[in-house]
């Protein structure tokens, strides 16, 4: 991983030096070794601030709508982040020629929350590194191996496309897809309504989920409208239903499942599960995968003559 990190820095430096891009968006060291933070590098000499490790969770594509609007920017991107970029390009929010993609092969990023459940004392971690299928967690006391199933973030467990679908330079080898670890979509269980009722009851309507979402790029979100007021501002469960259900409908075929909304939610609502559920339907009925660069049009904008008519679709 250190080698790959060097290459990222090198490519970023080159792109900045040549003036091809004005800024490179990537991850930098966080306040603690098991966290990283988005950084915006605009001087070649700062390229060494870029890092690459299993804690590089943020989907940096969210910054593109603003940063790549008027000029070309560089972005360090995992395969899933690239799927977001593809969606943004398809939806005309970013011009392909305005992004310089430093694409990465990826073994997955970690869910520090899950690790905590194990034996690791977070505060003592000095570095994180993949060692085959295990995560090597080095602490002051020595190294511990955590099995992938325990450490990986949910979306990484089912990620099949672990090399960049599109990129300008590709750094690091493509990583073979992990064996399918299967994740559960609790929303699909029988107590679906009860499950979400409990989840939404917690929502404080801070909109962190929306802000971090690369697909939620509307300048005026429907829920910020005063007229027509589809949802009121108050943080009641009913209004939260309206917000989350509508947002889920807005994300079908567009959410690439990065899980950022779930990660940033202060009260732990797994909003991504709704989109996952809908995307599964899109896959089954229309063979559509969000972020697939081959798809010419967005899910809702494409029509094939042999499409399933949902009105006549029997389960």
């Amino acid at each position: 991983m250190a080698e790959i990190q060097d290459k990222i820095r090198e490519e970023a430096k080159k792109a900045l030096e040549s003036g091809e891009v004005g800024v490179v968006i990537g991850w930098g060291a966080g306040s603690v070794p098991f966290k990283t933070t988005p950084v915006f590098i605009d001087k070649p000499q700062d390229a060494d601030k870029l890092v690459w490790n299993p804690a590089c969770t943020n989907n940096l594509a969210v910054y593109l709508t603003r940063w790549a609007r008027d000029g070309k920017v560089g972005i360090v991107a995992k395969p899933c982040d690239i799927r977001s970029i593809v969606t943004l390009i398809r939806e005309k929010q970013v011009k392909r020629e305005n992004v310089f993609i430093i694409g990465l092969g990826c073994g997955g990023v970690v869910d520090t929350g899950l690790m905590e459940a194990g034996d690791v004392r977070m505060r003592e971690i000095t570095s994180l590194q993949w060692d085959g299928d295990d995560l090597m967690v080095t602490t002051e006391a020595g190294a511990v191996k955590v099995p992938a199933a325990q450490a990986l973030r949910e979306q990484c467990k089912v990620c099949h496309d672990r090399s960049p679908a599109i990129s300008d330079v590709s750094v690091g080898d493509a990583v073979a897809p992990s064996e399918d670890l299967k994740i559960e979509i609790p929303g699909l269980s029988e107590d679906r309504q009860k499950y979400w009722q409990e989840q939404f009851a917690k929502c404080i309507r801070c909109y962190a989920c929306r802000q971090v979402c690369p697909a939620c790029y509307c300048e005026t979100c429907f829920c910020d409208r005063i007229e027509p007021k589809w949802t009121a501002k108050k943080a009641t469960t009913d209004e939260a239903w309206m917000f989350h259900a509508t947002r889920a409908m807005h994300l079908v075929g567009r959410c690439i499942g990065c899980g950022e909304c779930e990660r940033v939610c202060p009260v732990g609502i797994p909003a991504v599960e709704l989109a996952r559920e809908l995307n599964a339907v899109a896959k089954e009925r229309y063979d559509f995968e969000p972020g697939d660069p081959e798809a010419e049009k967005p899910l809702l904008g494409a029509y094939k003559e042999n499409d399933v008519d949902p009105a006549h679709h029997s389960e």
Partner: protein
Amino acid sequence: MRIGVFVCWCGSNIAKTVDVEAVAEAARSFPGVVYATDYKYMCSEPGQNMVAEAIKEHNLDRVVIASCSPRLHEPTFQRCIGAAGLNPYMVEMANIREQCAWVHERTPETTEKAIELTRMAVAKVAKNVPLFQNDIGITKRALVIGGGVAGIQAALDIADAGHPVVLVERTPSIGGRMAQYDKTFPTLDCAACILTPKMVDCASHPLIDIWAYSEVEEVNGFVGNFDVKIRKKATCVDPKLCTGCGLCLEKCIVKNVPSEFDEGMGLRRAIYRPFPQAVPNKPVIDREHCRIFNGGKCGVCQKVCPTGAINYETVDEVVEEKFGAIVVATGFELWDHSAMGNYGYGKYPDVISAIQFERIMNASGPTDGHITRPSDGKVPKSIAFISCVGSRDEEHGHAYCSKVCCMYNAKQALLVKDKLHDVETHVFYMDIRANGKGYEEFVKRTIEEYGANYIRGRVSKIYPDGDQLVVKGADTLLGRQVEVRVDLVVLATAMQPQRDAKDLARKLGISTDEYNWFSEAHPKLKPVEVLTDGVYLAGACQYPKDIPDTVAQASGAASKAIGLFSKDHIKSEPMIASIYEDTCIGCGLCVDVCPFTAIELVEVVDKERSTRDNQVMKTVARVNEGICKGCGTCSAACRSLSARLRGFEGSGILAQIDALADMVKAKK
């Protein structure tokens, strides 16, 4: 706000199941309602007068009619309140008939539902804003695509009414299929005698421009205002200099090109006109076969041309023209039956198609009207005509009946007997479809007076035996196998849409059916219109048709265009989509989902980000008001709520939902 509510009994249609008086009574307490009443027939003249009077008397500014579907009477009541001085769009209909009275029993709940529907309409009308129609100017000039008999008739009718017409035909001459025939059923007029004068009329009409050897490339715009790009293919012959003398045709050294017009039964040169009476009468050079365009040396035609009309350097020209209406008359093509191996078409020279037989019978055809068979030039002593070859045959992709084959089978069996008195004719048929004026009588004549041997049954196999062909099939009337030996077999191959029909449909933004025939707007009531205003259908491009039906429809299409041109302006429908550019993020989803391609993305100044010295642009969607039908698909798709449908704004819909929710809550 002063809302009036008018509850209709619809005779007993509504009153039988809904307590209409109770609905009116309940309405009196709805917010904003100052007057409510019920009446037997709200749409009748006294009913409408009642509404008009109430508007004056109670100073109403909004009206709710609780009656039938808005599809039926919304326009009626819009006119009614418009005449009474209100903006026509300040009326809402509560559909208490189809959505209530007709689907429920007479119970208190039914009346309750009618009250709720009315309450929702009141909530919506309270949010209505006045809407206004716009005038859109129209270009009074028509484009006719396809120069068969349909296109010719439509062009003549429109031009005779005083409007300029451009007739675009992709082959070098107008005339279409009909020009290929010898005589036409059921009257046996000589096709040329009745068609050629019409072709000449087109050529000499001061208001008709014939653009032969041309094709439509791109269509933009909307009713009254189409912008059409037309490719005029390079002919190498300057029409202004060419006198049509035909010297070049005689001297061209390439003599072996199978003639399309003769369906491969005759040959033509590389410089050619399809047939002697071609209109326009100027030849074209077929670049695929001309020596000059194939690396060879020649230039003979240029040398012999007395006026110097030939120029090998000419290139295709694409012109952009404005039209107000478009008539599509691109006709049909015939199924290539070689796909069906057991009949031996393309394999045995004496198995030919009916259209080839038309050419052989034609006095100006490749055999000068002498009926001979292709293999050895002998005069056939016996001929089998086989109908439904590929038609009514799902396996070969045409479940439909080609409609004219029974008739031209009879025509050909009759005409051939006129020329060769002792020829034996056998007609294999599935059943005889002769439903037209004089048609049944015509078939009867072929059988009774001209001795055609009609055999009911499908042919299973055709194979050669000596210099004859054996036709094997089942006679389903007699219930036995039959075998006839003949000298010539004529196949009535299925009519099918032009292979590029789908392409043209896409350019025009019109739809096609499962076979690619162009779809009319309504199978019964709008047979010449399509769902795109200003585009009309004529002839066999819609479905197999004979000449009488083709010409009738062509005149119908022409009269629609003339009707459109009789006005100087058309009114735009105000209940259409509009985009709030401030919040539109230019994602283009609405562009993708609009079934009428009414939306495009445009660049506008980004007010939010621009400063006085620095203008920043952004992409937003824009609705073409002439094309938008107000279907609302875009506003359903738009996430940022920027695509909105006037008359169906979110605030109105929400008010309806809230009203219903309040009532449901109150019940609990």
